């Protein structure tokens, strides 16, 4: 045994432990002291138990010891020996945080100091010692006040009538806390199985104060196609399990989501990245072949061309499939918000309902990692500045409990994430007053949309008071900057008194960029489409020279500095006069710049390649890509060019 190096298992242990903590946290937040769901408690207990086990095995005694206490407490709750109260849940949440801290220290190789968690440990111990009281809540869990035992045995031809037992079971779950047991006795062997017949029967224990009529209503459509019995549940503790052949399929209604362990494997991201790179090369090679084949005589080379078009299809499907392996559901970020909102709402004394919509929407792992901070900021903003206090809300005739909605969806090649609240909304007057106070350019004639944009100006903060939660003056401008750094955009819509909605639009992956290719001399450059405002062919009278040095172009009522890309990058060859070229208006950090290029080539999605891997960073260049003909094109870093150019022009 001594020869086995346990340290190589450490990484897995830590990964799994952190996942376990996430599960514990989410479950604790879902736990309602009024109506305790035993499966939720079991889940929390199991997570704690495996962390304890792992910590013991790998010799993290402090962690194991602390978790043991936690586990004991959870075990008592699980067994119904102890009621679960809101303060208990708070305590458990704090214990989860402490445990996360301990694990992080251990992971980073630090010595775990049990002293740091001593106060919490004492609290847990005290809670344990003071326990033993079995109040009514626990009893209620064991002995339902009322409920129904339903035996639902559809006839084999149920499906023929267009009914689906699953829908019925789901409807039952919505009525109350349903324990559903599936009876597979009638199931024939696989060979004899008729997939169009129903062979299953269910026994459902439905707890809650539900009228018999409500239950019967659910079965209204299938009454004639099944054997149905609805009997009142007798309040006897410990329901006897009905026979050994009964298999529990749906354990408990709301928490029935399988963890999906067996359906997924852990793969190092480096392997996936290598795969994505290889597929990228394949796509380029394929494009090269396609280009070569376009010169061939289609009559003589029919078979070859057919093969090539098949290759084209397959490579594209393959690329999509490989790209999707890096995709994670946005739930990975969303799942932290119930906790954030829970804590914040408590701190601010507000009542908040958090709604998550579209958690299953997938996007690239690297994007997920980077949107977490901006989103947290937005959610905090909504809670702190957006939502009113319960009294204010009541006075405004609104529900005392505010709603914050996080919504994710796909739109084209983008993911759109919305953070919306039904709070007080932005006040146009206040914003304008604040902006002029801060010396930010604004006027009364600005449209609402333009006024909302003021909030993204650097140094702008609308909070009347700086609070602990948000509003330290680094605000929305940082959010906007971070989102733009990801190639995305931020929009804001608001109605006074009705709420505010911030919409973030992001590319699905950082590996691909929507680009506009432009020609300068013989070179092709890629401009990120997100930075391009418009492109135009200027008239000679639109061009003005300023103080003999810089050149500006007049676009509508604005003078925009002009930058010939040819001179900037010292591309060989004679420069064309501006009015014979194309100007591409780009914007970054609120500054506009007109880039003078020779031609617009087209719009395309490009795969971003690193220039730094084998070379070094080049000013004004964010990366490179490979064009269809195999040549390399450089991707311009608009933010940097704008910064350097405006500085050069200002000097």
């Amino acid at each position, binding site marked *: 045994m001594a020869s086995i190096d346990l340290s190589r298992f450490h990484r897995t242990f830590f990964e799994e432990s952190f996942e376990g903590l996430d599960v514990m946290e989410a479950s604790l937040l879902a736990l309602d002291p009024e109506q305790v769901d035993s499966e939720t408690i079991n889940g929390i207990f199991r997570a704690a138990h495996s962390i304890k086990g792992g910590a013991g095995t790998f010799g993290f005694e402090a962690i194991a010891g602390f978790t043991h206490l936690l586990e004991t407490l959870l075990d008592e709750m699980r067994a119904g020996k102890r009621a679960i109260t809101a303060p208990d849940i708070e305590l458990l949440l704090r214990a989860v945080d402490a445990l996360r801290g301990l694990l992080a220290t251990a992971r980073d190789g630090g010595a775990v100091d049990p002293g740091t968690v001593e106060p919490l440990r004492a609290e847990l111990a005290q809670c344990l010692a003071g326990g033993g009281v079995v109040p009514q809540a626990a009893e209620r869990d064991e002995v339902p006040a009322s409920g129904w035992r339903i035996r639902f045995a559809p006839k084999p031809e149920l499906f023929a009538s267009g009914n689906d037992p699953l829908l019925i079971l789901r409807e039952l779950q919505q009525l109350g806390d349903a324990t559903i047991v599936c009876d597979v006795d009638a199931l024939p062997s696989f060979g004899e199985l008729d997939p169009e017949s129903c062979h299953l029967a269910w026994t459902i224990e439905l707890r809650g104060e539900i009228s018999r009529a409500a239950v019967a209503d659910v079965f209204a459509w299938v009454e004639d196609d099944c054997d149905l019995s609805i009997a009142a549940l007798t309040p006897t503790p410990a329901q006897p399990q009905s026979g050994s052949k009964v298999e529990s399929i749906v354990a408990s209604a709301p928490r029935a989501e399988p963890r999906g362990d067996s359906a997924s494997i852990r793969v190092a991201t480096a392997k996936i990245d290598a795969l994505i790179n290889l597929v990228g090369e394949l796509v380029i090679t394929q494009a090269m072949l396609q280009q070569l084949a376009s010169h061939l005589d289609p009559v003589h080379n029919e078979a070859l061309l057919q093969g090539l078009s098949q290759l084209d299809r397959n490579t594209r499907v393959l690329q999509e499939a490989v790209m999707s392996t890096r995709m994670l559901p946005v739930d990975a970020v969303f799942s932290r918000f119930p906790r954030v909102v829970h804590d914040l709402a408590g701190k601010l004394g507000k009542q908040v309902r958090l709604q998550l919509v579209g958690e299953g929407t997938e996007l690239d792992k690297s994007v997920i990692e980077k949107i977490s901070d901006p989103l947290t900021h937005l959610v905090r903003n909504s809670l702190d500045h957006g939502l009113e206090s319960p009294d204010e809300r009541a006075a405004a005739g609104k529900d005392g409990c505010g709603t914050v909605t996080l919504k994710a969806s796909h739109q084209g090649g983008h993911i759109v994430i919305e953070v919306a609240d039904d709070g007080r909304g932005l006040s146009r007057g206040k914003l304008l007053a604040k902006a002029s106070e801060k010396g930010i350019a604004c006027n009364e004639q600005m449209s609402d949309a333009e006024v909302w944009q003021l909030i993204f100006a650097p140094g702008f903060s609308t909070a009347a008071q700086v609070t602990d939660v948000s509003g330290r003056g680094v605000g929305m401008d940082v959010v906007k900057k971070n989102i733009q750094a990801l190639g995305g955009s931020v929009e804001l819509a608001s109605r006074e008194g009705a709420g505010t909605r911030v919409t973030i639009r992001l590319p699905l992956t950082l590996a691909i960029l929507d680009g506009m290719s432009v020609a300068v001399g013989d070179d092709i450059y890629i401009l990120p489409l997100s930075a391009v405002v418009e492109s135009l062919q200027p008239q000679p009278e639109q061009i003005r020279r300023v103080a003999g040095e810089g050149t500006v172009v007049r676009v509508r009522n604005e003078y925009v500095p002009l930058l010939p890309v040819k001179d*900037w990058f010292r591309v060989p060859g004679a420069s064309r006069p501006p009015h014979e070229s194309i100007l591409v208006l780009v914007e970054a950090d609120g500054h506009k710049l007109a880039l003078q290029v020779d031609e617009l080539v087209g719009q395309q999605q490009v795969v971003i390649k690193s*220039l730094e891997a084998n070379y070094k960073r080049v000013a004004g260049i964010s990366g490179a890509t*490979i064009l269809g003909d195999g040549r390399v094109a450089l991707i311009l870093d608009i933010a940097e060019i704008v910064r350097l150019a405006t500085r050069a022009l200002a000097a």
Partner: protein
Amino acid sequence: MNASAEAVNAESSEFLTFTLGAEEYGVDILKVQEIRRYDTVTRIPDTPDFIKGVVNLRGTIVPVIDLRQKLKFERAEYDAFTVMIILNIAKRVVGMVVDSVSDVMQLSAEQIRPAPEFGASVDTRFITGLGAIDDRMLILVDIEKLLRSPDMALLPAADGSVTQH
């Protein structure tokens, strides 16, 4: 990736020989990844003349230097025979343009002489020695040192510690 950069073998005596103008040069074969025809190079703005730009090497962006321009040869033409030696040094891939590649030669320790002092006019910092085979003379280049030189900056300078992901 046949030439692992770490495995720089001090005893290595196999050299890939190439010509620049009328002279024959040699580089440690373990640092050579492959040889390719000179392809269309994409210029990088604001770089010295001898850095020709970048090429696409099967999906990887690789910088290309022209050794002839770096060593101040007057003639640096690009024709059908111009080739690139793709070097793999310290996990970085760099292309090097030369006039032509000749062959691979084995040199024993006694065949290698120290580089003579040419005086200030010729840069001998990157020459490790001269190899003599019959009546031919090979100029052996310390390619790693060349790429680490400040004006190239193709490899991190300093002590060879590579800070790369």
